């Protein structure tokens, strides 16, 4: 019987493996996984929200916008009435879900902007109105926003954001203290952009309505021509498809549907010409 201690080579129980490589692979995995989860939740939340009853959306909108209507005074009432009348004429040709009504608001702001939000509320900014040469061009904007309402895009976007906020709340261990905080979180209502696909669908539905109302699609590209004159972010950064693409799509759609690209322009109703700033 002998005793002989032989040295064991290194590296059997400790694998040669760089912890730095591990670190980068794992953190990339986390980031990608989280992004995929977030995208999935946005999509799932949107799909789920589209199937909620319209009455829920209206109730939520009522609770959120209670007493927050933009300043309306004698001089702007006429504008609102004219805008509402245009919206009502267009709504006939857009298939709104049961129980949904479109309410137009005049938004006293320099931005060239219009948006649709929960409960069928559509906001048209003064900056946009000032740049509309006739009713046809304004009708395209209005029909586009009504189409968003009809497709329930605002509530879908909100649904996605709410789910995402829930995920963040779980991940960061910060419980939202109220439903309102969850819903209005980081500008959930205004900035929860619609995807480019929903924008295209709204363009198409809006164009159908305009063509049905006026019998031609003249001036429907005007809004995009206006945008083209503005400095525009590259397409990747913006959820809206580039204005040039949208103009091309309108022309292509008009060709396939056989709509006239030219026709008599309808002048803007007088209160909408040179809209005044609201008096506070």
């Amino acid at each position, binding site marked *: *019987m*002998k005793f002989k201690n*032989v040295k064991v080579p290194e590296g*059997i*129980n400790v694998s040669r493996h760089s912890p730095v490589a591990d670190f980068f692979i794992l953190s990339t995995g986390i980031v990608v996984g989280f992004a995929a989860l977030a995208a999935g939740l946005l999509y799932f939340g949107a799909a789920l929200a589209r199937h909620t009853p319209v009455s829920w959306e209206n109730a939520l909108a009522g609770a959120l916008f209670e007493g927050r209507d933009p300043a309306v005074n004698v001089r702007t009432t006429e504008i609102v009435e004219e805008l509402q009348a245009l919206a009502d004429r267009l709504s006939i040709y857009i298939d709104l879900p049961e129980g949904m009504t479109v309410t137009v608001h005049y938004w006293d702001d320099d931005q060239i902007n219009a948006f649709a939000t929960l409960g069928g509320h559509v906001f048209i900014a003064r900056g946009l109105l000032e740049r509309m040469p006739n009713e046809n061009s304004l009708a395209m904007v209005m029909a586009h926003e009504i189409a968003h309402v009809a497709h329930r895009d605002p509530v879908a976007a909100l649904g996605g954001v709410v789910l995402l906020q829930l995920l963040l709340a779980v991940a960061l261990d910060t419980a939202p203290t109220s439903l309102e905080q969850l819903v209005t979180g980081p500008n959930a209502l205004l900035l929860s952009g619609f995807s480019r696909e929903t924008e295209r669908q709204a363009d198409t539905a809006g164009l159908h309505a305009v063509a049905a109302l006026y019998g031609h699609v003249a001036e429907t590209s005007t809004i995009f021509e206006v945008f083209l004159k503005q400095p525009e972010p590259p397409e990747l950064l913006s959820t809206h498809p580039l204005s040039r693409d949208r103009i091309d799509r309108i022309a292509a759609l008009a060709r396939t549907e056989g709509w006239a690209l030219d026709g008599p322009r309808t002048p803007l109703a007088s209160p909408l010409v040179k809209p005044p700033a609201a008096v506070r």
Partner: protein
Amino acid sequence: MITSTLESVPGRAITTHLGIVQGSTVRAKHIGRDIAASFKNIVGGELRGYSELLSEARREAFERMVQQAEAKGANAVLNVRFTTSSVAQGASEILAYGSAVVVE
């Protein structure tokens, strides 16, 4: 390589003791398994995910121990033992160790 939990190989004399050999590995289970296991915990029964994880880890620890024994020039590892310890929440270490010997 003879591996045994006995202290000798019956019928064969130990000629040389070569000292301790050991093999270890640390394994973590992924979160999905944790979630599945927490559901399974309600009804009880085998947590198959954990069973597989640990037996796979044990096999690797054992192989590493045998590798050390080979490096020492042994032809048997006697009195082999396994221990399992949790290093941190969700990570287990499996250690296998034994006496490397040369038998006739």
